[in-house]
């Protein structure tokens, strides 16, 4: 189906709700004196968007808005994931001491706008749309990162983010112009046909274009060598925003990356295996990036003493594991990637949430703040954080193990043994730094001069839910796997 503007709207309700919600927040900010309601409203909007995605009509797929965006089950998966990330981010914002002191109206409006941009990234099928969506997410992220106006780290992080983002986006749009020159179109489908037509495009030119485009997308998923912004930004931004960037924005990056490298420039062959363009070895290129990303992320994380930085490097490494599924050129690989991203969402959001709870209680984010946490009234968050960190390591009976199992299984079945071994060794290395906070919390005694630890029920509630989901999906993953399997359909149309 190729739908025009008006006909497209019925597939676009979640995005419309987000837009409406964003405008409502801006308007209410002008008239209301009690600003706390803006957070609650945003929470409703995020929940509503998630609900609308769940209620969406089952269709095999459609082009929307004259082939700018697409409606298919792959986009559905990522929109659901992003909506979940936004929901957690808003929930955390309401419970965050940092956010309570900044401008509520701007904060929530931009947060919802950023979510909208991520939705569009997940469904863009036109290079122009892809670029606009990506930039939209970037711009809103700069604002959100720097929203703590009196905090120097926050300001510095926003500036760094802006500079890196500008360079990456510029590089990407230059690459896109090469593709346009080679294919004569910005439409993914037309690009695909043009590139696969006999002897049409010189391989070297296509390769250069892909490398340039990769800069922009690699920047969004924070893969090496486009990862340098991540530790500073994760550290400087308010924790709910760090969470949104770490799970939501990264997921959107993966969505765009996958849609561009799979249906746009590869062919689906029989039996769920994909064929890359002849002469353009992007899987090899990404394979190296993937191996380097997880290794570098893990090695750098070993040295960190700030929890946000530690989790930032960890999330770089986690992107590497997810990329393992990406480079396999098979539906199994993509499914593994989806499973991994979902698992990553649950455990990483949980870990950041506990970091926020501790920051609320102690005002600190360094590992020293966790010393003896379990023995001074913080046993519950300590146990929850341990669950999340062990899940990130990939210890069984957690969702993280299922994610790793899928990724490694896909790699072995496609005979990428070296990659599997690198991944496995990496998860052993990662154990060391994931256990450092655990060691601090349980194995060390409190110094004795700390205040008794207190947390709010609001935050503990979400933490409990995420911890239970981590364990439940670790023991009984079929629901998550079924969701990922259903989402493997890309709509490519016929014409």
């Amino acid at each position: 189906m190729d739908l025009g503007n008006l006909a497209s709207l019925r597939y676009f309700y979640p995005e419309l709700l987000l837009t409406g919600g964003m405008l409502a927040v801006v308007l209410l900010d002008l008239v209301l004196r009690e600003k706390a309601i803006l957070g609650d409203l945003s929470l409703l909007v995020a929940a509503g968007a998630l609900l609308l995605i769940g209620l969406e009509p089952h269709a095999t797929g459609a082009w929307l808005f004259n082939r700018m965006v697409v409606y298919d089950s792959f986009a559905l998966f990522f929109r659901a994931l992003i909506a979940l990330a936004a929901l957690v981010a808003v929930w955390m914002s309401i419970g965050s001491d940092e956010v309570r002191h900044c401008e509520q109206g701007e904060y929530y409006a931009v947060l919802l706008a950023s979510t909208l941009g991520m939705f569009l990234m997940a469904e863009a099928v036109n290079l122009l749309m892809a670029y606009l969506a990506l930039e939209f997410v970037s711009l809103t992220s700069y604002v959100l990162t720097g929203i703590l106006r009196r905090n120097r780290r926050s300001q510095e992080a926003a500036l760094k983010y802006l500079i890196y983002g500008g360079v990456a986006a510029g590089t990407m749009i230059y690459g896109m112009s090469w593709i346009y020159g080679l294919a004569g179109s910005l439409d993914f489908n037309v690009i695909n046909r043009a590139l696969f037509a006999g002897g049409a495009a010189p391989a070297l030119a296509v390769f250069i274009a892909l490398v340039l485009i990769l800069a922009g997308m690699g920047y969004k998923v924070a893969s090496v060598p486009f990862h340098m912004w991540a530790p500073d930004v994760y550290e400087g931004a308010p924790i709910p925003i760090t969470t949104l960037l770490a799970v939501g924005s990264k997921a959107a990056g993966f969505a765009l990356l996958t849609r561009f490298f799979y249906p746009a420039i590869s062919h689906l062959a029989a039996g769920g295996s994909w064929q890359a363009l002849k002469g353009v070895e992007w899987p090899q290129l990404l394979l190296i990036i993937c191996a380097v990303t997880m290794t570098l992320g893990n090695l750098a994380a070993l040295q960190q003493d700030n929890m946000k930085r530690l989790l930032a490097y960890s999330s770089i490494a986690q992107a590497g594991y997810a990329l393992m599924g990406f480079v396999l050129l098979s539906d199994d690989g993509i499914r593994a990637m989806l499973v991994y991203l979902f698992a990553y969402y649950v455990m990483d959001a949980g870990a950041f949430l506990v970091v926020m709870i501790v920051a609320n209680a102690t005002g600190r984010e360094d590992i020293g703040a966790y010393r003896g946490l379990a023995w001074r009234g913080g046993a519950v968050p300590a146990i929850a954080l341990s669950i999340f960190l062990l899940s990130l390591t990939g210890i069984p009976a957690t969702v993280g193990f299922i994610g790793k199992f899928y990724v490694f299984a896909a790699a072995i079945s496609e005979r990428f043994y070296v990659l599997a071994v690198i991944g496995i060794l990496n998860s052993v290395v990662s154990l060391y730094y994931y256990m450092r906070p655990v060691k601090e919390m349980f194995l060390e005694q409190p110094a004795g001069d700390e205040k008794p630890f207190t947390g709010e029920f609001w935050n503990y509630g979400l933490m409990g839910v995420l911890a239970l989901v981590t364990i439940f999906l670790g023991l009984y993953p079929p629901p998550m796997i079924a969701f990922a399997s259903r989402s493997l359909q890309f709509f490519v149309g016929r014409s």
Partner: protein
Amino acid sequence: MTHALTLITFVPLIGMALILICPASFKPAYRWIAAAATVPQLAIAGWLYANFNTSTTAMQFVERAPWIRAYHIFYFLGVDGISISMVLLTALICFISVFASFSINRAEKGYYALLMLLDTGMMGVFVSLDFFLFYIFWEVMLLPMYFLIGIWGGPRREYAAIKFFLYTLLGSVLILLAMLGLYYYGATPTFDMTVLAAQAAHYSISFQRIVWIALFIGFAIKIPAFPFHTWLPDAHVEAPTAISVILAGVLLKMGTYGILRVNYPILPAASHDLAWLFLGVIGTVNIVYGAMCAMAQEDFKKLVAYSSISHMGYVMLGMASFTAAGINGAVLQMFNHGTITAMLFILVGVIYDRAHHREIDGFGGLAQQMPVYAGITGIAFFAGMGLPGLSAFISEVLVLIGAWQPHPIMTILGAATAILTAGYLLWCFQRIYLGPLNEKYRGYPDLSFREAFTLVPLGVIVLILGVYPHAILSLLNTSLVHLNQIVLSANPVATAALH
């Protein structure tokens, strides 16, 4: 009882839940809940022992239910002659270790809850027949162990705990890769160990060798086989008494059990090729090197830890012999080592609780002050030396008889080490218990009722198995002889083609 194995595995988990919801004002109740949870486990183990059919090689008490269909993963439990003795050992050691834990007086809720989780993990490893399930239990066990050593351990506990965790995780990720390899490159994709064993001939010999070595490293770290053994002395020295008991009594057996459960039946051709080197030679190194290290130790607990490494070497040597005597001896040795080493660690704990140090040279003449304690130590030491009439004699002799034909030199080295073993144990006994009483220790009480209660059952088993080894051997024999046949008859053509 159709769900005997599920019950025996998850009863401790119920105990754990009860401990966790038990309010802090009932603090003394934790230990009794834990004890109460291990009693039904022991009872079910007894029931299994009574109802076990010793004349079949088939899996018994089987339970099976689908779990993750996308990967053909089942909740599949069952025991045969290879695992039944380990189930008995686990139930026994866990029961004993709860009572050996009574001297723990810090954060008891967490301690007993983790102990219960550890119990479930260990039992699960021995009863699961689906490789994926096996792996889950295998890993689940690591966590409580990390915390039990790390929170309730000695001065260098943090180092010992993370070292244990890192070593074993490195081993288990190799097992994970091997498991996935077996899954994808068999005739049908499955994690069912019985099916994997039935399609063993499907795997090419070169594939078998790679997977075999990956699995071996994973399991060898647990045994622990030289050169992967360095975590063990650290872990033992820092761990609290009961955890050392579990570590030596049950956890080490998982390594050799894994090889018997996975490597031998699923990769028989590679086992036939590689066992002499990886199990025979390394096992002999374990025996000799462990004994020599034990001789050099100043710390009582470290001495026991190294002697434990040395004795596990006999298990490996017996497994490498591929004779009925050798392999039966190996599994019997696993059981005997479990009971004897558990006794030794409890005995170390008894004196440590009183003196708060373990310096062998710092004692002297304790036999005068604590005669019962010295007497039981004597039984355990003599059992450790392999004196006739005590359990380890039978198993070590079986191992040596079995290994003599295929590996004469290793057997001679193994047998000769008995002299070293006697040397370090007697020397240690002399320094601690004999001679004039060190005045510092005058007035020390002899064994308390609780301590005697943890030691006597183990001592009785050591005595009984010394004269009536058939009580355990009859369980093992049928399955092990069958397993031995499988390995011996594994495709000699494929083996020959390589040379």
